[in-house]
């Protein structure tokens, strides 16, 4: 399937917080520009692989539930990764249901609906050709606080028209035979520091003892946790210094905040530890109410964990294969529109739009 110039998608219902993201805006943190980008970059890279994109092509990030949109200009190949969800494609009086973790084609004029997300708070919807909004400072990621990047620097709204780039790949839709497990292990690995010495031994013991719960104060900037209170040697304030994604800062309240992709570039609260990059995708998937503990590892162990994760991603991408599982008809919709004729076999690949 080739995507013609002029292809796009028009948002009908945006979902709770749907944004355009990529792997983030790098190289401007010294000027105060945050990185932003996908909360779950592993899901983003797999979604892009499923539609034949480069791993850093811009995607649509869904939170809690995905958008509904109309395919405009030309057919699109799409794939959702990072959460389980039911995806329905309606066109010409026919409705098909697709799962996550596989590519599917939607003809021009089709209505695509991404249902509620299961197993994760966020998911990546990739489109062959990538979301082709204009890059700002080298990235298409939405900076919600700075109000730039993505589509007009804000979450998507009904009526928005997103341009799609020209797709390189042609051929059968791909699927991921074994989706990565989404269930949270309950543990995030951290490297202690850089201000671990701002806390008492009891404070560090409380941090590593846990458990903590993700509170409702959780967004793309960070998640405030509730749990055992920290004790400081002097106080929470430090001379402001740089923040890495995954830094866990502890303000005077003693309740830690895990900083995520939209975090400020520098901050003035002591940072007890940093979540290792291999566990950041899992942190990005957490929802309020999740319970977690922290376990300390060395820098060398953190780097090894990241190499293992990269090997797993490469292995997953290597297993992508043409779709073999049958498309299931959306029976509820079919009954509703009285289209069931008994002539369609659910055991064979169905090409109702050809």
């Amino acid at each position, binding site marked *: 399937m080739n995507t013609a110039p002029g292809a796009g998608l028009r948002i009908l219902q945006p979902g709770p917080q749907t944004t355009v993201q990529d792997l983030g805006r790098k190289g401007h943190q010294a000027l105060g520009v945050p990185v932003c980008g996908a909360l779950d970059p592993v899901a983003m890279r797999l979604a892009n692989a499923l539609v034949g994109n480069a791993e850093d092509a811009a995607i649509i990030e869904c939170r809690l539930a995905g958008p509904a949109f109309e395919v405009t200009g030309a057919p699109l190949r799409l794939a959702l990764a990072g959460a389980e969800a039911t995806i329905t494609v309606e066109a010409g009086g026919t409705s098909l249901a697709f799962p996550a973790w596989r590519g599917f084609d939607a003809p021009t004029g089709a209505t695509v609906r991404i249902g509620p997300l299961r197993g994760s708070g966020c998911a990546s919807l990739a489109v062959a050709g990538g979301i082709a909004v204009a890059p700002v400072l080298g990235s298409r990621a939405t900076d919600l606080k700075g109000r730039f990047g993505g589509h007009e620097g804000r979450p998507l709204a009904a009526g928005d028209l997103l341009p799609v780039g020209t797709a390189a790949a042609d051929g059968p839709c791909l699927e991921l035979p074994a989706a990565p497990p989404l269930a949270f292990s309950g543990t995030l690995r951290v490297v202690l520091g850089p201000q671990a010495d701002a806390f008492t031994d009891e404070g560090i013991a409380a941090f590593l003892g846990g458990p903590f719960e993700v509170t409702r104060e959780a967004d793309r900037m960070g998640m405030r946790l509730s749990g055992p209170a920290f004790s400081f040697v002097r106080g929470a304030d430090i*001379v*402001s*210094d740089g923040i890495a994604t995954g830094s866990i800062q502890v303000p005077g309240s003693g309740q830690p905040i895990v900083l995520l992709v939209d975090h400020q570039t520098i901050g003035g609260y002591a940072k007890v530890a940093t979540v290792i990059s291999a566990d950041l995708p899992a942190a990005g998937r957490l929802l309020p109410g999740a319970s977690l503990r922290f376990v300390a590892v060395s820098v060398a162990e953190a780097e090894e964990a990241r190499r293992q994760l990269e090997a797993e991603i490469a292995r997953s991408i290597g297993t992508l294969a043409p779709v073999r599982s049958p498309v299931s008809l959306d029976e509820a919709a079919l009954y509703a529109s009285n289209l069931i004729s008994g002539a369609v076999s659910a055991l064979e690949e169905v090409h109702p739009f050809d």
Partner: protein
Amino acid sequence: MHRAAARIAADPPPGVIETVPTFRSLLVHYDPRIAGAESIQAALGSCDLGDTATAAPARIWVLPVLYGGEAGPDLADTATTLGLPPEEVVALHSGGLYRVYVQGFLPGFAYLGDLDPRLDLPRLSTPRVRVPPGSVAIAQRMTGVYPIESPGGWRLLGNTPVRFFDAAREPPTLFAPGDGVQFRPVMADEHAAIRAAVARGAYEPECRDGEAAR
């Protein structure tokens, strides 16, 4: 720190993505797929910073500020707390030549120092939920301007219509590290005229040659 950041940017060791220089530390972001912390630390350990004497600013920005009133809602309280007349607070704040030490917190927010010790006050005990863009503020020995609307705990003395961040430009910030900054008190009508010119895209902030100013 800025010298170290500039050296690293000019010849980054493999794996280094970018650095964030701050008052007394330098954060190095690296890609663990390319290099480990140990090898990067070894490469940076041999970074020659050269002459570390502080140079005079190459350029000095002169920012028009409307002090007090709605533009600077904390000016009166600040003056009362310090036991100074408001005019004296304005004179001390606008009399200083500041340096851009660190940019961060918000895109285009610059930590400018050093503030006159007579204006040294802690941050507000209860931060504001919304600080308007352009607010000129002080905290401890620092001053700065909020480039976009944001929560904030600094004391607001005035407002400048100048824009500090434009994502469509490269670099996106008005200031570069080490730039000099001065504040020039203006009246409400000049503030309004400059604000209108900024909105039209017809205002170039005043910038002086730092060497000539010495």
